């Protein structure tokens, strides 16, 4: 009985303990380090928490008993949260920018912040990011609007300060604290940032190019110096090689020439000796020829020369004898011919002298006769010429007088003078007309004797016609008496000449 009772008691106690453990487990709540327990329900003892008016209890970092069914427990996360921000805004300088940033925040650790936060977000913890985003977009726009682009890029201090100043109080209302605001990306549609960087970029590029060029130049110079030194070394090497090669060639040539040279020298010695031998042989041959050929030939020549001289002398003597003989003969003949010729010449000379004397005498006689005849003729002609001259002068004077008289008469009566003149000239005119017939060798007249008379009549009528013409001419030029006189004087001489023989015959 006692044992049984004991078992029951022990079993009840175990069950009771188990019940208590289970009950404790159901009532005990523990707040994790990153969360706060918000317990509402029973009024709790005053003084344990700061916020008592709203009647809920905040537990952080420890466990607490909760009466199931009477109290409710909510958990508020104290973890870090972040909200992405993307806005279009303008800077302090009015430059449009697209800013993408992130704000990192959490619920404050103090009970005031937790209480504020719990009252606002306890059932909307998932939407907390959205709320914060909406709030912070405006703040970020304000922050960017009060900064310049350069400050945004460089001045973190100012960015955080502005963040704190513009959003700190507002976030306090929400029970939140901002750990950090980061600007992740700035879109720059106007190219301001790129242009901001351009001068420095250009400068850096310039420096880089200068440095590159300098380095290149130095490298090239060094390369060229090295090349020059290499070329120098190569030149020296080549020169030395050429010198050595020349020496080697010289030595080789000398060596190669040594054999032929010595050979030539030996050959020269041999030739010298052979020459001497040949000279000696020549001398010996000469001596031999002297003895065998020249001496006998000289003897023979001397023999022949002597014979020839003797023969020549004999012939010369014979010829001389013949020459003297001929000479004597010729002299004799010459003397004989000379004597004959002299005799003949004397004879001829005498005859010639006789002839000459004869001719001379005759010529002198003829000359005398001729001179006498010529003298007689000359005298006759002189007398005749004197008579002619006197007659001509008398006739000229008479003619001049007659012309003068005629000129005077002409001045008075031309026609009479001309008629007289023509009558005086008529025989000469008829003679002139008949002259062509005199030149004709044989005249054949078809009409017989009547024809001949007709020809003559024609000729005479031509003369008559010419007479008329002459008369006309004279009458036309009658006014100029001097010209007519001269013209008449030309015609007058003809009858004067014809009268001259008459005078001659008259004498």
């Amino acid at each position, binding site marked *: 009985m006692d044992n049984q009772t004991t078992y029951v008691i022990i079993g009840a106690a175990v069950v009771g303990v188990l019940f208590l453990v289970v009950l404790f487990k159901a009532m005990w709540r523990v707040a994790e380090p990153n969360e706060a327990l918000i317990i509402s329900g029973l009024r709790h003892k005053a003084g344990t928490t700061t916020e008592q008016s709203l009647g809920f209890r905040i537990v952080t970092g420890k466990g607490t008993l909760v009466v199931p069914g009477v109290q409710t427990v909510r958990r508020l996360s104290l973890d870090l949260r972040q909200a992405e921000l993307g806005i279009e805004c303008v800077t302090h300088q009015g430059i449009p920018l697209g800013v993408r940033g992130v704000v990192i925040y959490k619920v*404050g*650790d*103090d009970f*005031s*912040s937790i209480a*504020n936060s719990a009252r606002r977000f306890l059932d909307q913890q998932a939407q907390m990011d959205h709320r914060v985003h909406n709030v912070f977009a405006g703040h970020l726009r304000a922050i960017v609007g009060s900064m310049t682009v350069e400050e945004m890029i460089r001045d973190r*201090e100012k960015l*955080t*300060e502005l963040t*704190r*100043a513009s959003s*700190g109080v507002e976030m*306090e209302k929400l*029970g939140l*604290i901002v750990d950090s605001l980061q600007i992740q990306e700035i879109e720059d549609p106007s190219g301001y940032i790129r242009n901001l960087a351009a001068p420095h970029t250009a400068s850096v590029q310039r420096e880089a190019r200068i440095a590159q060029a300098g380095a290149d130049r130095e490298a090239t110079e060094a390369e060229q110096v090295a090349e020059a030194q290499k070329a120098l070394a190569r030149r020296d090497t080549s020169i030395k090689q050429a010198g050595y090669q020349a020496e080697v060639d010289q030595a080789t040539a000398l060596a190669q020439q040594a054999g032929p040279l010595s050979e030539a020298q030996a050959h020269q010695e041999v030739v010298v000796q052979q020459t001497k031998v040949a000279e000696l042989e020549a001398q010996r041959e000469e001596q031999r020829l002297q003895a065998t050929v020249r001496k006998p030939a000289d003897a023979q020549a001397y023999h022949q020369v002597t014979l020839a001289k003797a023969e020549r002398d004999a012939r010369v003597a014979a010829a001389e004898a013949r020459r003297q003989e001929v000479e004597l003969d010729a002299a004799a003949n010459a003397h004989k011919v000379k004597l004959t010729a002299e005799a003949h010449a004397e004879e001829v000379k005498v005859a010639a002298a006789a002839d000459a004397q004869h001719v001379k005498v005759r010529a002198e006689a003829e000359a005398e006769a001729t001179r006498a005849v010529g003298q007689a003729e000359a005298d006759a002609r002189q007398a005749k010429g004197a008579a002619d001259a006197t007659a001509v002068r008398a006739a000229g004077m008479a003619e001049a007088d007659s012309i003068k008289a005629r000129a005077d008469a002409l001045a008075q009566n031309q026609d009479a003078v001309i008629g007289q003149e023509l009558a005086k000239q008529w025989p000469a005119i008829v003679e002139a007309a008949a002259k062509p017939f005199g030149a004709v060798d044989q005249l054949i007249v078809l009409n017989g004797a009547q024809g001949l008379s007709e020809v003559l009549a024609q000729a005479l009528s031509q003369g008559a016609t010419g007479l008329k013409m002459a008369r006309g001419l004279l009458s036309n030029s009658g006014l100029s008496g001097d010209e007519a006189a001269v013209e008449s004087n030309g015609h007058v001489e003809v009858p004067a000449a014809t009268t001259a023989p008459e005078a001659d015959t008259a004498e």
Partner: protein
Amino acid sequence: MMGKIGRVTGTIGPGKLGEVMVPIRGGTEHFHAYASDGDDTIQTGTRVVVIEYFPPRTVVVTPM
């Protein structure tokens, strides 16, 4: 909270809301800070003493 020693992490100046880091509750938290003398400027890194606390996140400090 009062009497705690902290360090300025954001320059405190006239018209400027500064920031101080104060060790509290086993860690450090940052609080918005004003200078006790309103014209005073407290540079970053200066050690300060909290002389006033405005819950939840604002303190008034003075340089040590």
